[in-house]
């Protein structure tokens, strides 16, 4: 079973207990007085809420929640749960003090010759999946990773085709999402390969969930897939410009599908998530990787820690940088470090070059070092008789005492240090004599090495391959003439 990283120390707080009480009071008030819009085509979700005692306006599709029902829904959520991967060594146990890192999505691949975005070819996509499979600090996939699209594949089929590729070229857990009913087929692929996926849905802020999301949630919950529900607001545009106000709307939004899941399947695993950004008031785009995101998402994680419910914090994987440069490193590193320390259970970081628009496996290799460094930081300082080394310190004594030749050093140094895989750690002289290679040069070498040598731990059987092809064919039939657009 994959371990992720264990946080050895208490997560830090950015809010007081009184702040949390005030936010919770605001959330309950909004859910009771304003409610959430469920813009569904079929009344199933509205009927479920109605039966549970919510006030439902079937015309406007607005559901108002009594505070007791909200609190009951929260109480029923498990504090941790197991997700089976195709290879049990890559299983996840989400919750507690474990932190997992996952990649973000990139609509396009980045052409390394021209640095222009374009769709990846099938081979480039498959290679990228194999590279992600090889990275030790990338614990599971996103449904649109490494890229959302593949050249020549219709967008309606891309979520299904890309999952089929990830199922073939990796054994790590996958993440599904709402997308034009693609979940119908991805859930079937998961069954064929003997895995479960994390199922993510996003709100249509403010205070609204689309039919696509809620229909997919109902199917996913009934299929036993753990649910991740993310508020998707942009502060100052689809949420208040203030972080406290944004926390109220984001938490209120995530509670809608959380309660629905508990009403359908009491005890169903649910992870509230953040997908929120300030508005860049010059461009109108989200202000990716603004440090206030780290602050707000730390507050979000702290809120849910009160109820021991795991959280997903994604924004470190959505940088403003356009290339793998200094800005990219500090944007991703600072945000992910804060989110992991603040108690986030799933932190996104790998692969994305800019926003959700471009992604490349070279970036994922660079990011894997950031994830590894943060993971080592989380694992903290082990204090025991062995690590205190009092006897050894006495034995070595003052100068000319020396530790490098000691068995204790040989035993412990690897546990204590983090060894980057692609960062340049040479001395200045070595660097000058060794071709003056940058971290990017070293990442390219690592990428070539992975492509040459990495084998997926468990291959699909021919029967599984055939079944996946049948599912892809069914998907083509399902979408029919819509694939002509």
């Amino acid at each position, binding site marked *: 079973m994959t371990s992720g990283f264990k946080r050895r120390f208490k997560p830090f707080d950015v809010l007081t207990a009184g702040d949390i009480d005030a936010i919770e009071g605001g959330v309950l008030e909004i859910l009771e007085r304003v409610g959430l819009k469920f813009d569904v085509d079929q009344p199933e979700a509205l009927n479920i809420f109605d039966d549970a005692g919510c006030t439902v306006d079937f015309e406007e599709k607005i559901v108002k929640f009594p505070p007791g029902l909200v609190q009951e829904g929260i109480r029923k959520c498990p504090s941790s749960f197991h997700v089976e991967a195709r290879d049990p060594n890559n299983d996840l146990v989400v919750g507690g003090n474990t932190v997992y890192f996952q990649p973000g999505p990139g609509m396009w691949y980045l052409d390394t010759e021209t640095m222009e975005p374009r769709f990846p070819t099938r081979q480039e996509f498959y290679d990228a999946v194999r590279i992600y499979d090889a990275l030790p600090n990338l614990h599971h996939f996103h449904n649109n990773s490494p890229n959302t699209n593949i050249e020549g594949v219709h967008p*309606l089929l891309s979520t299904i085709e890309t999952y089929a590729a990830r199922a073939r070229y990796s054994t790590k857990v996958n993440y599904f999402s709402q997308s034009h009913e693609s979940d119908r087929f991805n859930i079937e692929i998961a069954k064929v390969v003997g895995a479960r996926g994390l199922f993510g849905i996003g709100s249509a802020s403010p205070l609204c969930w689309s039919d696509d999301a809620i229909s997919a949630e109902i199917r996913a919950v009934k299929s036993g897939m753990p649910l991740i529900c993310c508020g998707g607001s942009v502060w100052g545009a689809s949420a208040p410009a203030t972080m406290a106000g944004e926390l109220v709307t984001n938490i209120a939004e995530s509670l809608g599908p959380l309660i629905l899941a508990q009403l359908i399947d009491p005890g169903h695993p649910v992870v509230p998530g953040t997908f929120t950004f300030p508005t860049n008031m010059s461009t*109108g785009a989200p202000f990716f990787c603004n440090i206030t995101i780290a602050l707000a998402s730390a507050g979000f994680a702290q809120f849910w820690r009160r109820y021991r419910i795991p959280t997903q914090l994604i924004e470190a994987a959505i940088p403003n940088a356009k290339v793998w440069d200094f800005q990219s490193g500090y944007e991703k590193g600072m945000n992910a470090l804060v989110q992991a320390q603040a108690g986030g259970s799933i932190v996104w970081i790998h692969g994305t070059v800019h926003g959700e628009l471009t992604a490349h496996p070279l970036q994922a290799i660079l990011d894997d070092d950031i994830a590894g460094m943060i993971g080592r930081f989380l694992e903290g300082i082990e204090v025991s008789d062995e690590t205190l080394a009092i006897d050894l310190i006495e034995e070595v004594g003052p100068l000319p005492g020396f530790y490098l030749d000691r068995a204790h050093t040989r035993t412990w140094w690897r546990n204590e240090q983090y060894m980057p895989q692609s960062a340049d750690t040479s001395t200045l002289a070595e660097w000058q004599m060794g071709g003056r290679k940058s971290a990017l040069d070293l990442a390219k070498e690592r990428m070539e090495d992975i492509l040459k040598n990495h084998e997926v731990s468990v291959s699909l059987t021919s029967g599984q391959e055939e079944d996946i092809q049948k599912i892809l064919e069914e998907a083509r039939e399902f979408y029919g003439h819509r694939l002509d657009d």
Partner: protein
Amino acid sequence: MGDEKYEELRRAILEYNNELAVDTVKAVVEEGLDAHRALEVMTESIRDIGDRFGKGELYLPDLLGASGAMLSAMPIIDEELKKRGEQRAGLGTIVAGTVYGDIHTIGKTMVATLLMAAGFSVYDIGVNIMPKAFVDAVKNHGADILCMSALMTMTAPEQRKTIEVLKEKGMREKVKVMVGGSAITQEFADSIGADGYDPIAPGAVELARKLIAPQGAGE
């Protein structure tokens, strides 16, 4: 007397005061002052805000605040012009919206406001717009340009569908089509037969000017 009202209207736009804008335009109409001049003053004010936005002195909340004040007063102007059997004066008429299945609003609103600031008569018909609704709006407003935004690869094909409906209705030659949004590229715009694309919102203004210019103008 009239000048005072126009200056009050200018202040209403520059201070993002919807109520004052509505009251002032009502007074302009009731006092028999020039509705065209009122529209001109509002457009000048929006242009001022737009210029300062372009220089980085003001930000989107300012741009939207000013356009909100102008839009709140526009129905009164339109009603008055309709009574007189007149039309808005301007560089041309534009219908703008975000395509069906897509509820992203910011980019579309930025483009609509900047076009308004540049002197175009803009009808922003919102988000999640079906192809037929776009085409109906083009017809109803006699639009010279249709602007469509799409932020997702899933929703980008709606732009193609709308162009197809324009063709079916025999209206394609009467209106220029501009497309934009994160999911759109020049290549995609060309493939669906759009007349223009620009990757950034301010680029829409120059593009619209070019599209609407008489053929051969400036050559």
